């Protein structure tokens, strides 16, 4: 109990409060701006953390981490341009709601989802961290491989009407992820003699090209935004809409749990979390057909899923010293720079720091919600701007934002090529998300497959020798066979 109070006092110290508020606002800003995202914000703020106490430094960076996910929902809902890659899923229902003049409902659902997902994941982090880390500690390459395969199968199956295109795009995404120098063998792959290609194709460049530039070009052609129908009478979030979306509290909790569990596993990350949370919500909804056409429950599920990832990703980082993704790898850097080495003993050696971290995470989620709820109008005003200004500005910000990540103009070229492809594929109605998921999950599947085969001396039968893997693979088989069985049953009746 003493530790909890000590952490509470440290979290509410003025320096910590200032750091987390600044971090959260920076996070929201970089989350809202397409092409940036929390990574750029965290990297930029990293040099400032060297002069700070470890808890204050962590609050600053965690603010950017969480604030980025909050902010990413705003352009996804209003413009169908994801501020962060995982917000793609939020746009499925958020943008149709905006088109119908119900942007307030969509943003309420997204913000409540983000806050709820964050709070649920913190509760899980605090209560179940030791238990969950013990489970994750039992995972080896075969288990991670099976989980990643399960995730990608879920993506393919969710596009049943366009299964061929989804499979093609997943394969293409896998292949794109292999371009560049292969880490384990240092062999160049599909670089076609280009020096720049040896670094591979940057995920941010590909995603921003596909969705940012591609969508901006489509916006110019189709003029999707119906700005006149948007209710901008309020400068803040309409709290009566919040009450309406709270009827989906079960979805909120479920999505938060899903996001935390996915965040716990190194690799899959927020894109998969929001996608799975969305898909589960759709499957369990009494009206699944309304998903993708403007159902606030979809926004809520997606945002709860992706905003639960940061707390989930902290679990393996704090207890095992394994960063779940690039963002938590930066946090690991802050720990080690301050002479703190995350691992099983951290919870015993630094209980106050851990308690401060939990309180800070809680405060960050509340601050991010309040900041966006109160200053909603400046963000919502974006949709009042003519489509030409939006399209041209989105392309400019995306290209400069992509350059800002690695300071490489080559990435701008990649984004432009991806933008052209994205425009054509969006025009044809292909499921672009499958391509992004292929690019994100490809390296995880590849690395785990090679490690698994190495463990089995080249034999894949090792997958059937481990109980957890067998269960996950059985789920994969069920996932593929269930729709087939459903179709056969329907035909026979």
């Amino acid at each position, binding site marked *: 109990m003493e530790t909890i109070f000590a952490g509470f006092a440290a979290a509410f110290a003025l320096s910590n409060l200032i750091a987390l508020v600044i971090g959260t606002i920076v996070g929201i800003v970089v989350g809202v701006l397409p092409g940036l995202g929390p990574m750029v914000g965290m990297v930029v703020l990293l040099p400032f953390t060297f002069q700070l106490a470890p808890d204050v430094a962590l609050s600053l960076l965690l603010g950017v981490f969480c604030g980025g996910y909050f902010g990413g929902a705003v352009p996804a809902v209003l413009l169908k341009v994801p501020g962060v890659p995982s917000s793609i899923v939020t746009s499925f229902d958020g943008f149709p709601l905006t088109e119908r003049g119900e942007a307030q409902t969509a943003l309420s659902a997204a913000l409540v989802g983000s806050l709820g997902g964050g709070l649920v994941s913190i509760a899980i982090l605090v209560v179940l961290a030791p238990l969950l880390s013990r489970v994750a500690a039992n995972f080896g390459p075969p288990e991670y491989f099976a989980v990643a395969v399960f995730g990608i199968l879920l993506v393919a199956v969710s596009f049943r009407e366009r299964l061929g295109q989804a499979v093609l795009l997943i394969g293409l995404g896998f292949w794109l992820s292999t371009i560049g120098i292969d880490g384990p063998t240092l062999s160049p792959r599909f670089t076609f003699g280009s020096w720049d290609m040896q670094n591979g194709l940057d995920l941010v460049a590909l995603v921003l090209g596909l969705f940012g530039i591609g969508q901006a070009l489509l916006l110019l052609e189709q003029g999707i935004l119906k700005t006149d129908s948007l209710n901008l009478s309020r400068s803040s979030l309409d709290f009566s809409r919040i009450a309406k979306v709270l009827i989906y509290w079960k979805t909120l909790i479920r999505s938060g749990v899903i996001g935390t569990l996915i965040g716990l596993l190194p690799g899959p990350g927020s894109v998969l979390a929001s996608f799975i949370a969305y898909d589960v919500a759709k499957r369990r909804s009494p009206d699944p057909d309304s998903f993708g056409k403007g159902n606030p429950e979809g926004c809520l599920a997606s945002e709860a899923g992706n905003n639960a990832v940061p707390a989930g990703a902290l679990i393996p980082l704090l207890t095992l010293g394994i960063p779940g993704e690039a963002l938590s790898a930066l946090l690991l850097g802050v720990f080690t720079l301050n002479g703190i080495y995350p691992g099983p003993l951290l919870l015993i050696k630094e209980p106050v720091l851990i308690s401060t971290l939990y309180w800070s995470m809680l405060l960050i989620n509340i601050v991010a919600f309040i900041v966006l709820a109160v200053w909603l109008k400046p963000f919502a005003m974006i949709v009042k701007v003519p489509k030409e200004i939006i399209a041209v500005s989105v*392309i400019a910000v995306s290209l400069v934002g992509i350059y800002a990540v690695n300071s490489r103009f080559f990435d701008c070229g990649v984004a432009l090529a991806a933008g052209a492809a994205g425009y*054509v594929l969006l025009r044809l109605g292909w499921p672009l998300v499958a391509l992004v998921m292929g690019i994100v999950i490809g390296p995880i599947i590849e690395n785990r497959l090679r490690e698994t085969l190495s463990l089995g001396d080249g034999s894949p039968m090792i997958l059937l020798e481990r109980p957890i893997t067998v269960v996950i693979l059985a789920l994969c088989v069920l996932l593929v066979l269930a729709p087939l069985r459903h179709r056969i049953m329907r035909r026979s009746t």
Partner: protein
Amino acid sequence: MSDTDGADTSSRAGMSWAGDALATLIGLAALGLMVTAKSHVDVSGPDPFYKGPLIFPLIALAITAAGAVPAAARLLRAPRSASQAIRVRLPPRPLLLFVLACFYAPAIAVAGLDASTFAFLFAGLLLAGYLKPLRALLTAAIVTLLMHLAFITVLDIWFPAPTLWSAFGGA
């Protein structure tokens, strides 16, 4: 059926044909890369195949090719004339803006972030159909200022020194 309905149906059929044609092309490209993969991937290392750099790309390309099979089958079963594809040709404004965007990033290296952003935004707005030159000028100036504040003042992103101005300075 009205003329509009007929045009919509024809356009949808054209889009579907174009989609199947694109999928088939990607599938064929994937097959081509599978066949020539050894010349694009350095497999000279000592690792056995299952640890090597080629196993996953081959799986990825096989998945891509497999995904294209239904589209190729549809295309073979119901071949349509190329005129179908002409109906789904790309409109000029996005094309013009895209071409302009291709010059934007190189222009940053030549003229710097501010000048190139201002020029891109102003020209882009006019090309995109925003035919109010004064407002376009003002908008370009405001967005350029905001981008300068965000990327240079706040985020402190490094941009290469513009070669154009140094050339003028040296002259």
